[in-house]
């Protein structure tokens, strides 16, 4: 498996195990939506820090496993895959930001808007890394 595919899997797993529970808790429990709501902020901080730790440890582990691959610069196919994945993620992100920034302020406020923005950012990232994994799987 190419090194860049492994790192894409790592990013997907890190998001699943951190922001998956975060959004589940936010959806299940009715936390107060008004700002600043430190409990909600603390929950977000835990998810963000956990994601950073998983990514840091994961990258360290992958680098140790295949230092040669980690040092190899991206070639033209890697860059083509990166361009495709970023352009796919862009559409998800722009649609999300229009929804969150232009539509939601008329009906929601506080943490609802923040969490909706987070959902869209995470969705864009999932699309980004998902397209990377898919592209490497089918070798394109």
């Amino acid at each position: 498996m190419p090194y860049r595919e492994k790192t894409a899997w790592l990013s997907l797993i890190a998001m699943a195990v951190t922001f998956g529970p975060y959004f589940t808790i936010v959806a299940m429990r009715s936390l107060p939506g008004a700002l600043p709501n430190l409990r909600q902020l603390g929950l977000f901080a835990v998810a963000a820090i956990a994601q950073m730790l998983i990514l840091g440890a994961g990258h360290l582990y992958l680098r140790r496993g295949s230092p040669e691959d980690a040092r190899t610069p991206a070639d033209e196919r890697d860059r083509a895959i990166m361009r495709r994945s970023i352009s796919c993620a862009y559409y998800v992100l722009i649609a999300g930001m229009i929804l969150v920034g232009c539509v939601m302020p008329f009906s929601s406020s506080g943490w609802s808007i923040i969490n909706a923005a987070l959902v869209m950012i995470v969705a864009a990232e999932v699309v980004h890394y998902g397209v990377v994994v898919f592209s490497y799987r089918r070798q394109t």
Partner: protein
Amino acid sequence: MMEGSISNRMRILRFHNGEMSQAELGQRIGVTRQTIAAIEAGKYSPSLEAAFRIARVFNLPLEEVFQWDAQATH
């Protein structure tokens, strides 16, 4: 528009050049082993520059390494 696909003889050329490995060929033209594998499998079309580099490694003109299999459509 004329439709078609790019095929190549890289696998056989590697074999005829001392059973050169995909990794070695990749190293010589500046791409990864996985990219060479993808090109050989017809899953990825290399840039013109990479195609010329590959042909240069085998000391052959480009068209003896890569072929355009045309399927005329109307």
